[in-house]
C-alpha cells in the first residue's frame, strides 16, 4: 500500500522541482538518442550491408540472446526473492559449460556420438544441468544463507568473492588452457524453411531455450513450488507465516536458476565451441544486463531482455558505430553491451516489463 503511494507521489514531486541533475540527465538522454539515430541513418544510407546481411546479424543476435536469457533467469529469480545480485551466477554457468565439455569429450569417442546425436546431446545437457544446479545450491548454502538479512552490500561482496573462488578453483583443477568442444556433425550447415536460412546450431539453441523458458513459466505459475516461490518473492515474512518453508523455497530458486544456467552452458558449447575458466564472467554480466533490461524480478522480462541485448550487441556496432566510420568497431562490442545497461538504467530503470526497483530506496 505504502509503496504504491510513494510511486504515485514521486513523479509529481520530481516534476515540480527541476534539479540540475535532472536537466543534465535529460540532455544526456536526448544527446544519446540523437547520436544513435544519426549513426543508424548514416550506416543504413551508406548501404554497406545488404538486407540479407542485416537479417543474419539479427538471427545471430537472437541465438546469442536466448542464451543470455537462460542465464538471466537465474539472476532475475534470485533477485526477485532475495533482492540481491548473485554475482557468482556467471560462474555457475561456466561450471555447467565445463562439465558439458568433459562429458561431450568423453562421449565423442564412443559410437553413441555419431549414431544418435540427439541422445548424446541430451546426456550433455542433463550433466551440465545437474552440475550447475549442485554448484548453485552449494554456494547458497555456504556463502549466502548465513547472510540472510545482512546489509545489502554484504551478500553482494560475498558473491564477488564466490565468483573469484569458483573461477580460480576451476582454473586450478582443470588448468588455464582454453578447451575446444568436439563437433557434432549433424548440427553442421544450415536449415531452410520458406526461404529463410538459419544455422542448425542456432535453431537448436533457440528451440531449446524456448522450451526451457516455457517449462519454467508453467512451473512457476502452475505448480505448488512455483506458487510458494512467488509468495516468498512477494513477502517472505508473510509467506513464512502462511506455512511456506522459506529456506527451502530459496534453495529451489537457486537450483532452478542453476539448472537454466547449466542448459545455457551446454548450448554455449554448441555455438561457440571453446571454454576456459574465465568464460563465465562476460556472459554473466551480460545476462545481468538482460535481466535489468527486461525488468529484474520478472521471468518473461528476462527472456525479452536477453533477446534484445543479443540483438543490440550483434546489430549495434554495425548499425551505430559503423555509421560514424569508427575503425575496428567490433572491438567495441562489449562497450555496446555495457552502454546498453547504463542507458537502460538512465532511460527506464524499470526495464521493459519490470517494477521500479533500481531507484527504490530500501
Amino acid at each position: 500500500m505504502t509503496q504504491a503511494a510513494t510511486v504515485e507521489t514521486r513523479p509529481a514531486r520530481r516534476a515540480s522541482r527541476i534539479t540540475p541533475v535532472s536537466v543534465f540527465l535529460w540532455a544526456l538522454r536526448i544527446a544519446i538518442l540523437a547520436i544513435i539515430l544519426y549513426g543508424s541513418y548514416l550506416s543504413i544510407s551508406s548501404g554497406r550491408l545488404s538486407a540479407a546481411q542485416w537479417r543474419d546479424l539479427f538471427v545471430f543476435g537472437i541465438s546469442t540472446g536466448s542464451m543470455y536469457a537462460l542465464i538471466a533467469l537465474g539472476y532475475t529469480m534470485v533477485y526477485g526473492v532475495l533482492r540481491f545480485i548473485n554475482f557468482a551466477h556467471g560462474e555457475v554457468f561456466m561450471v555447467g559449460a565445463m562439465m558439458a565439455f568433459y562429458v561431450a569429450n568423453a562421449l565423442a569417442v564412443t559410437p553413441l556420438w555419431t549414431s544418435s546425436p540427439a541422445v548424446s546431446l541430451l546426456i550433455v545437457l542433463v550433466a551440465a544441468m545437474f552440475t550447475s544446479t549442485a554448484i548453485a545450491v552449494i554456494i547458497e548454502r555456504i556463502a549466502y544463507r548465513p547472510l540472510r538479512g545482512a546489509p545489502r552490500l554484504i551478500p553482494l561482496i560475498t558473491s564477488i568473492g564466490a565468483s573469484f573462488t569458483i573461477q580460480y578453483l576451476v582454473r586450478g583443477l582443470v588448468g588455464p588452457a582454453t578447451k575446444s568442444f568436439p563437433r557434432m556433425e549433424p548440427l553442421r550447415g544450415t536449415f531452410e524453411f520458406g526461404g529463410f536460412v538459419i544455422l542448425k546450431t542456432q535453431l537448436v539453441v533457440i528451440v531449446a531455450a524456448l522450451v526451457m523458458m516455457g517449462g519454467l513459466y508453467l512451473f512457476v505459475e502452475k505448480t505448488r513450488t512455483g506458487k510458494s516461490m512467488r509468495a516468498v518473492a512477494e513477502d517472505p515474512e508473510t509467506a513464512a507465516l502462511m506455512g511456506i518453508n522459506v529456506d527451502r523455497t530459496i534453495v529451489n530458486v537457486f537450483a532452478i536458476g542453476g539448472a537454466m544456467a547449466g542448459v545455457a552452458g551446454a548450448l554455449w558449447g554448441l555455438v561457440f565451441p571453446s571454454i576456459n575458466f574465465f568464460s563465465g564472467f562476460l556472459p554473466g554480466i551480460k545476462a545481468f544486463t538482460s535481466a535489468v533490461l527486461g525488468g529484474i524480478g520478472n521471468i518473461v522480462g528476462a527472456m525479452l531482455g536477453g533477446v534484445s541485448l543479443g540483438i543490440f550487441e550483434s546489430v549495434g556496432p554495425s548499425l551505430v558505430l559503423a555509421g560514424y566510420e569508427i575503425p575496428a568497431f567490433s572491438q567495441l562490442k562489449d562497450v555496446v553491451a555495457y552502454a546498453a545497461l547504463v542507458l537502460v538504467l538512465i532511460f527506464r530503470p524499470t526495464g521493459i516489463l519490470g517494477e521500479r526497483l533500481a531507484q527504490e530506496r530500501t
Partner: protein
Amino acid sequence: MKMKRGLKLLALVGVLSLVIAACGGGEGGETTTTAGEAETTTSAAGEETTTSAAGETTTAPAEGLGTIEVAAGDPIKIASLQSISGETASLGTDQVRAIEIAITDKAEVLGHPIELAFNEDDGCSSEGGQTGSTRIIADPQVVAVIGTSCSGAGVPASNVITSAGRVLISGSNTSPVLTSDLAGNASAEYHDGYFRTAHNDAIQGAAAAKFVFEELGLTQVATINDGDPYTQGLTGAFEAPFEELGGTIVISTAVTADQTDMRSVLTEVAAAGAELIFFPIFQPAGDFIAEQALEVAGLEETVLMGADGLLSDTYVTLPQTEDMYFSGPQTPTTDAYAEFVTKYTEAYGEAPIQSFHAHSYDATNMVFTAIEEAATDDGSGNLTIDLQAFRDALGSMTHEGLTGSLSCDDFGDCASPNIDIVQNTADQADIEAVRGNVLISYSREDLGL
C-alpha cells in the same frame, strides 16, 4: 584539537625534509646506478635527432659500467624473466626449459659452474616486468637476464636491467618498440644493453605483405588483430609495406581475444570486399574466425592467412583451416636442432610447446660466449667480468646457433631471420608437416631491410 593539527603539519614538514635529504643522498649513491641513469637520459634526450641518438647511446657510457667478480669455485649467475604463469605460461615455460638445457649443455664457463639464480615471472605485463627485473638486479652477481617473454614486460625490464649495467637478452620479444624500425631509427625504448634473438615484427610484416602481393597477386586485403600488442604490432607491420607495394587495405579491424562471435566482424569484412584476411592472432579467437568465415555469405572465396601464433597442432588440424597460409620464423631443420628437441623431450616429457625455445637457447649460449670473451682470470680462478666489455662482446659477436647465424645490429636485433610462408593443405596431417610445407622463404636482404 588545534595542537594536534599543528603537530601533524610539523610531521609533514619533517617527512618532506627527510625526503629531500634522502634524494639528495640517493643522487650520489651507488655508482653503478648513476652511470646507468646518465645513459638512460642520453637516449631519452636524443629523441628528436634519432639518427644521431644511436651513435650517442653506443659511445656514451665510456666511463664503464662496473665489474662483477666471481671468486674461484663460485658459480656465474644468470637469470630468466619469462611469463610462467597465467594464460601465456606456455610461452615462458618453453623458453625456461631451453635455458636450462643450454646451461646443462654448457656445464661450465671458464671453469665456473653456471647457476640460473632466478626464474622470475614477467606476468606478461609491464608491472610484472618491472617487479621481476628489480628483484633480479638486487642480486649484484647476476650478469645477464634471459627474457622477457612479452614485449610489454620488456619495456620496463629493459630500462631497469640495462640501467643497472646488466644485459637483457630476449628470445621472444618482437616489438620494434624495443629496438628499432630496421631502417636505422632507434626506438624510444631502446636501451644499450638490450639484445634479442627473435625476429623484429617489421621483418615478418614485410614478408607476409610481399608474399600476398607478389606471389598470390591479391590486392584487396583485410587485417584483423585481437587487441594484443603483438598482433596489433604485426598487422601494423603488414599494412605499411603492403600499401607501399601498391595493395589496398580494405578494412583494418580488430576483435577481442575472448570474443566468440566473429560473424559481425566477418560480415563487415565481406562487405568491404576483401580477397584475403590476414589475422595474425591466437587461439581460440583464431578458431572462431576460421570456422565462422565459412558461414558468412561473401567470404566463400576469400583466402585466410595467419601467423606464428596460430601455428599449433590444435589449430592446423581443424578442418576449416585447410588451405590457409601462415607466416612465421623459419623452423630450424639442422641436426643440432633435432638433437636439441630430443634432449628437450627426454627432460620434460613432451616436445617443445611453443616456437621460441631455440631462440632462448641461442640467447643463453651467446651470453656464455660473451662472458668467455669479456672475463679476465687472475690466474687463481677468480673471475672479473667487465660489464661494458661484456656488452661489447655480445654486440660484436657472430654466433652460429640453432636459429641460424646471429650477429647484432646497432640496436640489439641479433636475428637475421628467414620468414617462411607455409600452407596447410589436405596433405599435411600435423603441425610438423605444415611447418615443413614451405612455399617461399624471405631473408632480411630479400625484403630490403
